[in-house]
């Protein structure tokens, strides 16, 4: 029986709440409605209004009370309805969620999971398609994870909830309906490790979240041209699996980073910087970046021109191989 990414995450939430009655799920419209993407569907019915509840419309309030609940002893999962609506919570995330454990010299633990559907490609209006991962990955104290498959949707969500560190859990919303025939529950690699989704010899493609599938498609298309691409799913954006990244480049000598976020200071910048720092003599070409442009996320009718796609990746593969 096929399971979608959304269903896998939903199942992970259910199983985690079943396993530990300290786990709470809350946010805007997560109760009766089951979330605008139905990822929390059925949780309120099953666990009652106290363990899965709708909050007032206030994101700073959601994250701030999650911190208080965690201090009290709960393991809160808080949903931000969309990527572009996490910004009101920025101060609570950056100044407290990320820093309070360190500030307290380790006495305060904040096992909080912030779920954020993110990324574009669904024809939405403004603020509903953003990729804010750089903001979080630059902020020390946060862990940032993003699944690229339904299996990881399940297993990484369970790991995030179990983590005693605060986790920003980025859900690639355009892949919510992506299917797999995984049997849940499922275990996958430790969350801080990248995974080679496809082995290859010519160029390494580093990707995550929504771009994992796109990178796999690019690798298929490249094979037709006779190019062998290695696809590495990063999974964890903070910490970054530097070792895994460097190991792949040592094999292929070439690297391209793929993400939807704008190029400047996107994850591609950090990955390029690390690769050239650590594998300088292995590089046969510069690390290239197939990303969104340095402009605000475009209107729906133009998003296909903005988002990285197979063609943009292949152009860069060609450029890389030309070195």
């Amino acid at each position: 029986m096929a399971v979608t990414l959304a269903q896998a995450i939903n199942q992970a939430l259910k199983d985690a709440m079943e396993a530990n009655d300290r786990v709470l799920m809350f946010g805007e419209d997560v109760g009766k409605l089951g979330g605008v993407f139905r990822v929390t569907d059925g949780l309120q019915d099953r666990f009652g209004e106290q363990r899965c509840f709708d909050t007032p419309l206030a994101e700073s309030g959601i994250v701030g009370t999650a911190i208080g609940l965690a201090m009290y002893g709960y393991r809160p999962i808080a949903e931000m309805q969309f990527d572009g609506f996490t910004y009101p919570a920025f101060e609570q995330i950056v100044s407290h969620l990320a820093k309070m454990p360190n500030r307290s010299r380790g006495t305060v633990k904040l096992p909080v999971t912030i779920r954020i559907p993110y990324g574009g490609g669904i024809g939405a209006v403004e603020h509903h398609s953003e990729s804010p991962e750089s903001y979080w990955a630059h902020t020390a104290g946060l862990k940032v994870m993003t699944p690229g498959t339904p299996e990881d949707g399940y297993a990484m969500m369970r790991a995030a909830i179990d983590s005693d560190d605060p986790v920003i859990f980025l859900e690639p919303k355009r892949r919510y309906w992506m299917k797999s025939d995984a049997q849940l529950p499922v275990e996958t690699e430790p969350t801080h490790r990248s995974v080679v989704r496809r082995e290859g010899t010519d160029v390494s493609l580093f990707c995550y979240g929504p771009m994992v599938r796109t990178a796999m498609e690019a690798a298929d298309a490249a094979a037709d041209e006779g190019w062998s691409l290695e696809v590495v799913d990063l999974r964890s954006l903070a910490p970054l699996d530097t070792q895994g990244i460097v190991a792949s480049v040592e094999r292929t000598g070439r690297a391209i980073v793929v993400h939807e976020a704008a190029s400047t200071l996107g994850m591609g910048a950090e990955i390029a910087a690390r690769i050239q720092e650590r594998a300088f003599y292995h590089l046969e070409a510069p690390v290239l970046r197939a990303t969104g442009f340095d402009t605000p996320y475009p209107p729906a009718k133009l998003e296909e021109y903005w988002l990285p796609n197979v063609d943009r990746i292949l152009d860069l593969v060609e450029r890389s191989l030309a070195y």
Partner: protein
Amino acid sequence: MSEHGSDPTVAPRSGDDPRLLLPPDEPVHLLDPDGTEHPDADHPLDLRDEQLRELYRLMVVTRKVDREAINLQRQGQLGVYASCMGQEAAQVGSAYALEDDDWIFPSYRELGAALVREVDAAGLLHLYRGTWLSDHDPYAHNFGLMSIPIGTQALHATGFGMGARFDDNPIVAMTYFGDGGTSEGDPHEAMTFAGVQKAPVIFFVQNNQYAISVPLDKQTAAPTLAHKAIGYGMPGYRVDGNDVLATYAVTKRAVERARAGEGPAFIEALTYRMEAHTTSDDPTRYRTKDELDEAAKTDPIARMKNLLLARGLYDDDLEREIDEQAQSVATYVRDGIYDADHGDPMELFEHVYVDPSGHFDEQAAQLRAELDGSEGGA
């Protein structure tokens, strides 16, 4: 109690009884569903017959265009649409109380207010089509860009109102947000600033009972939303939001007060969202048909028609004329949207900066090459 003298721990109270800032026990209501009028000395109506017809006409056109937008969405012409059905009186009555020079800072649901300001409705809907992120000139009609991040526009209205006050420019800025929006920090900060600055700003809340699926009692424990106003030192008004005469009259009074330099006001208009939150929403998950049927009985348009009938201002000619006009605006919108061009992808780089200083040269060249390549390939 002892005499405290100039004890700073007992701050002086302003002369007026602050309780005057509280809303009345019952919302202002001037018109029953059956068209019966309830004159109210505090809210005298200064509307001429044509204006009464005009209010009705605006509501009918709003509903027609709103319906057209829902159809366009169903036909794949809009990505999504947030209907204002049921809220026509709240929007039309309040916007009608403004002068042309006054400004409106809307959320995403203010089609009715936009039509009062004669904003090009097709242009407006391009936001929902995704042609561009907005497509009307805010300065042409003093109607700001529709704002999607909840409540944020309240601060823009406040800054604008402050600017007007600094300039002794007798205009007023009105902002719309929803019952859910009252929970966000931004409207709170906006009302704080407006209160301190005595800025001519009207905070008009359409309490349509829901924020998507979340009902009002999960949003706040306040006795009413209008009870928030006193916390900012401004009056909190409450009005039957499905009564266009009342929303007009209450807003008018608040606007005149603000224009006279007496500062901001908060208006809670009680209404009901008759449609889904947006076309993507499934309201059957969180509200009953009974509730909807009950709400339908308070329809703002039927009510106004009953008034016109009662006053002898409604006849077949008027009906035909208004229907034709509504149809013609709807057709205009449909023509403006249907299969409208997607625009030039190169525009992505055009408006990010007034002075990009060469910033986009490379990325623009890349997109240009991609476009040429895919044309070549086709």
